[in-house]
């Protein structure tokens, strides 16, 4: 509680006790028909009224001074004075008391939710240790770390800035940032991202960014700024609030004046007008709607999804078409050997070893995947048998690249051919029935030993980009969220694209697209659907798809931990590369929008009904106080549900 809250609470308690005492006293007098002087009673009731209402009266005076007569404190003051005028001392006092209790709850509840959101975003460390000339590491604030400083992170501590590990390896926990609970293994030479929690060993690393440019500061800034980009719902509420108060006040004035002239019992109508003034503040709406969006953004960031504005969260709830980039989004984006088929007198290892010899100096993605597979096979084997296989073909090869076909390596002992079917045909290598057209990149391996007369096929290596493990289940989850069309865009060949579409269960695939074609494709999709409700989201890995990210209604970048460009270009940023975050964030967005709609409907309905009943004399000031502060508190509590879903979505 802040100082001001404590002061208000004290005033409420003192005034509350006095009020209850007075209420009992008045009731007792009425019961025993003891008549009391009206002015004495007024003076007595003014004591608790002034104790609890002082801040309101002060604010009302301030409002008059600044000619802001539609200020809620001013209206509240008028309402209570009106009630005193009509002789309803008890009610006048009660209105002020309950109004202040309500205000207190509001400020307490908002403070509480603000705090829990802060906790949600508690990812930055307070202090850090850097190596200095002395023996002990020096304790500094994270923003005092310079680029090149050696930072020491003890087990269990948070990483303060981004950098590269010099010594120490172990498991680090990225769940703070990505929601991923399985720790990640890091070794010297690896990049380390601020905000992660160090596991069990001491890590020394070189700072590569200052605090302000580090991931953790970027994330915090993003989330803090997010509430500045207002959703349509919030803008609607702001506009509504602007007209609501004046209308209710005008109605109150009319209600006090016109029937009083006609029916000649002014105190009844002034009392009814006072109920109007009590309900005239749109506070419930003005607080609760942004609060639920704020909570939604907080809940999403806990999952490792940064939503850059309330407006984007609102759009996420309306997605009906999801356009996905293939490489890096649906697939892992690195090529792997998925199958090796060999002729009878070769083993798989030998086939890989042969191709490894000619490909090991290359950086081509296919070559990289062969190298990776060779290294994997070498590491798998403990008795060095396979290493023997690998040494068997070691030689001084003269490598010749044949563009668009493959590579030929020539040594004293043999010639190795690695490439496509054209390369094999040109060199008289017969393709056997081993060959089957699979939907992946195909790499033939041929060899001609010096003692043989012709070159022959050794085996075929199939290489493809692997579909992410969670792709299929995520796609069906996304569909379950009500996204009707899921479309893949890819630069790859039609057969590869269709295979991926088939395996993941998406509706359509547009293949063989250049980066600029992707923008046109998204524009076409936007055009096709016309002005229908809902929106089109694009999801990509943020690498060279910035134009598409900004063209779609919502651009989602994934796998962007540490990539500034992606964080910059996208509207929604997924820090790690798990697709399963998409259905999660759609659910959070839907829930946020639902809660804010519930609040709007509930608050407006209660207020309008109370206004009507108040005008008819059915609802009294007590009901009006409930319609004002009670509704606000209920709406705030409803919004706070957003904060509790951090675990169970």
């Amino acid at each position, binding site marked *: 509680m802040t100082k001001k809250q404590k002061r208000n609470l004290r005033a409420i308690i003192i005034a509350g006790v006095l009020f209850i005492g007075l209420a009992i006293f008045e009731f007792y007098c009425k019961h025993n028909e003891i008549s009391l002087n009206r002015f004495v009673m007024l003076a007595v009731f003014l004591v608790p009224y002034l104790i609890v209402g002082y801040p309101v009266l002060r604010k009302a005076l301030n409002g008059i001074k600044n000619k*802001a007569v539609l200020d809620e404190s001013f209206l509240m003051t008028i309402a209570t004075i009106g009630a005193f005028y009509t002789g309803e001392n008890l009610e006048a006092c009660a209105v002020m008391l309950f109004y202040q209790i309500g*205000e207190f709850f509001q*400020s307490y509840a908002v403070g509480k939710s603000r705090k829990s959101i802060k906790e949600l975003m508690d990812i930055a460390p307070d202090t850090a240790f850097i190596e200095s000339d002395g023996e002990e590491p020096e304790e500094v604030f994270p923003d005092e770390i310079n680029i090149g400083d050696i930072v020491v992170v003890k087990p269990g501590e948070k990483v303060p800035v981004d950098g590269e590990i010099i010594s120490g390896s172990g498991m680090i926990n990225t769940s703070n940032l990505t929601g991923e609970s399985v720790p990640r293994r890091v070794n010297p030479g690896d990049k380390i991202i601020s905000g992660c929690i160090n596991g069990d060993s001491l890590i020394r690393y070189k700072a590569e960014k200052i605090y302000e440019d580090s991931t953790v500061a970027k994330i915090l800034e993003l989330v803090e700024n997010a*509430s500045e980009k207002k959703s349509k719902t919030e803008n609607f509420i*702001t506009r509504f609030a602007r007209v609501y108060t004046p209308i209710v006040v005008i109605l109150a004035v009319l209600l006090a004046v016109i029937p009083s002239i006609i029916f000649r019992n002014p105190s009844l109508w002034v009392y009814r007008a006072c109920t109007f003034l009590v309900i005239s*503040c749109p506070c419930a709406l003005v607080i609760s709607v942004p*609060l639920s969006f704020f909570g939604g953004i907080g809940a999403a960031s806990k999952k490792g999804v940064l939503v850059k504005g309330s407006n984007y969260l609102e759009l996420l709830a309306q997605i009906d078409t999801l356009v996905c980039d293939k490489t890096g989004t649906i697939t892992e984006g690195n090529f792997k050997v998925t199958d090796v088929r060999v002729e009878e007198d070769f083993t798989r290892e030998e086939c890989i070893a042969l191709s490894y010899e000619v490909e090991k100096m290359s950086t081509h993605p296919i070559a990289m995947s062969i190298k990776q597979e060779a290294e994997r096979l070498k590491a798998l084997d403990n008795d060095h048998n396979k290493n023997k296989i690998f040494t068997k073909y070691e030689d001084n090869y003269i490598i010749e690249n044949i563009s668009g076909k493959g590579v030929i390596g020539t040594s004293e002992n043999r010639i190795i051919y690695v490439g496509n079917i054209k390369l094999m045909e040109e060199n008289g290598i017969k393709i056997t029935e081993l060959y089957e057209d699979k939907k992946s990149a195909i790499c033939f391996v041929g060899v001609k030993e010096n003692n043989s007369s012709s070159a022959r096929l050794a085996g075929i290596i199939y290489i493809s980009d692997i579909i992410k493990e969670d792709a299929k289940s995520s796609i069906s989850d996304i569909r379950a969220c009500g996204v009707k069309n899921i479309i893949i865009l890819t630069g790859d060949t039609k057969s590869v694209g269709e295979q991926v579409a088939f395996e993941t269960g998406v509706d359509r695939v547009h293949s063989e697209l250049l980066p600029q074609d992707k923008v046109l494709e998204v524009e076409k999709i936007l055009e096709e659907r016309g002005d229908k409700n809902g929106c089109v989201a694009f999801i990509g890995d943020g690498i060279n798809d910035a134009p598409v990210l900004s063209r779609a209604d919502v651009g989602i970048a994934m796998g962007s931990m540490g990539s500034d460009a992606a964080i910059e270009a996208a509207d929604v940023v997924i820090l790690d590369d798990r697709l399963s975050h998409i259905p999660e964030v759609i659910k959070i967005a839907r829930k946020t929008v639902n809660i804010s709609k519930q609040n709007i409907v509930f608050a407006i309905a209660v207020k309008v009904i109370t206004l009507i009943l108040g005008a008819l004399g059915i609802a009294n000031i007590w009901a009006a106080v409930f319609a004002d502060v009670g509704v606000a508190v209920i709406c705030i509590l409803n919004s706070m549900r957003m904060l509790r879903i951090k675990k169970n979505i």
Partner: protein
Amino acid sequence: MKKRFDLEDLDCANCAAKMEAAINKLEGVNKATVSFINQKFTIDAEDDRFDEIIDLCQKEMNKVEPDCRILR
């Protein structure tokens, strides 16, 4: 120049909205937001009159809420 300040004793959401509207009408202010939830005030205003503008913002705020203070 764009800067963000913490606010103290900003008590009502509607007041924040009113402050925001009033401050955005001030001369030299490009864009200002008053966030009730964050208790933060973000302002983008002309560089050479920046401090003077902040003083004016403080005045506008106090017209709506006498206790509210910009922490600088």
